[in-house]
């Protein structure tokens, strides 16, 4: 007898659509229409990946800029989780020499938890980003992550410094796309990051004419995206 393939079985088991789905959908659409009577869509074009709200609690202008633009493969980003569950609530930080200490400060400040600071452990996710979770011992392993080796490489640290500089620079002055890319290239050259590149993945939208920087360390790249005028 042919052995059962659980993946094939799973794929066949998708629940059917409820028989009253059309009626329920109509009710939902009516509710959205009612909401739409008082709320018009935003006209601005924001980075969409965080659309729909906040699994991540993002704070601080610099962290906000990086989180909205960088990928998870960015090993210079830090995620501080509220529980030892990497699908749970988190606070995203941009750069830190000591991710565990940076996250500990959030617990001390009551941004995570209620003021009591649990033991914290630094881990690294599959994309190479620092992840700090409450717990001790093999907690990284339990949540499917590797343990964090403290410290950044010299190259990573140099890229972080460049990115920090760009966050400050672009935060105080509106750089258009071309000027921003040139500025990134200039900063990379000055830092001796010869293998790093600068680009703009999308043309800036008229509603978001000012550059914001992001790091993609996996491909050694600093990119700029359009942001609203500040």
């Amino acid at each position, binding site marked *: 007898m042919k*052995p*059962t393939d*659980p*993946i*094939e*079985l*799973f*794929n*066949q*088991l*998708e*629940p*059917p*659509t*409820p028989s009253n*789905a059309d009626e*329920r*959908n109509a*009710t*939902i*659409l009516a*509710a*959205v*229409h009612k*909401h*739409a009577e008082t*709320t018009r*869509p*935003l*006209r*601005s*074009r*924001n980075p*969409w*990946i965080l*659309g*729909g*709200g*906040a*699994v991540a609690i993002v704070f601080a202008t610099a962290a906000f800029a990086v989180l909205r633009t960088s*990928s*998870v*493969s960015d090993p210079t980003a830090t995620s501080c989780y509220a529980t030892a*569950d*990497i*699908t*749970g*609530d988190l606070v995203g930080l941009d750069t830190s020499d000591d991710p565990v200490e940076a996250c500990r400060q959030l617990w001390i400040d009551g941004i995570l938890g209620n003021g009591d600071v649990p033991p914290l452990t630094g881990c690294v996710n*599959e*994309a190479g980003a620092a992840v700090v979770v409450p717990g001790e011992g093999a907690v990284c392993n339990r949540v*499917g992550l590797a343990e964090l080796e403290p410290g950044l490489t010299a190259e990573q640290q140099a890229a972080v410094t460049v990115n920090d500089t760009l966050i400050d620079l672009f935060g105080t002055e509106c750089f258009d796309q071309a000027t921003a890319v040139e500025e990134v290239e200039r900063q990379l050259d000055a830092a001796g990051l010869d293998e790093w590149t600068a680009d703009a993945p999308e043309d800036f939208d008229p509603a978001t004419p000012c550059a914001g920087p992001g790091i993609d360390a*996996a491909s050694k790249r600093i990119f700029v995206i359009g942001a609203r005028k500040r």
Partner: protein
Amino acid sequence: MRRVRSLEYQFDTFFTAHVHDVRRYTATFVKDERVDDVVQRTFITAWERFADIPEGSERVWLLGVVRNHARNTWRSERRADALAAAIEHARPEVSVELTRNGYGPTEIVPLMDVLRDLNETDCELMVLSGWFEMTPTEIGQLFDKPANTIRQQLFRARKIVHERFDDLLETGELQ
């Protein structure tokens, strides 16, 4: 003469095109009585961000919104439990040949046990690739991860399911 459709008309068309997938996906996160609430929140967000939704990636964008709403609103409800409940609701009567290939409770019950033990991410990868036929690239957009990472995670998740399922069938240790 160029005819301009109203924003409301465009949105209704968008709603009709995607509500089925949004409902299906939501049902894998929360129990049926909560599905409508999450679907409604999702489309209210879609209305408010209508101008931001990237053309060609509407489904991925919407599923991302579902994900956020479902996870923020109903955190106490374990994902795997909701998924297992959804499958249980869908499984055929014992006396009937339930699935297209004739699988029955002997196979489905252990699979549900395996799903209950899977972590949330692995469950979601199974759903997105199996039921939504999403590619690793699309799932990567949803998770904000490189496609290669998704491929590795998916490979690992399937391997876990295979191993645990085979173990359960072999030992008969069902929950």
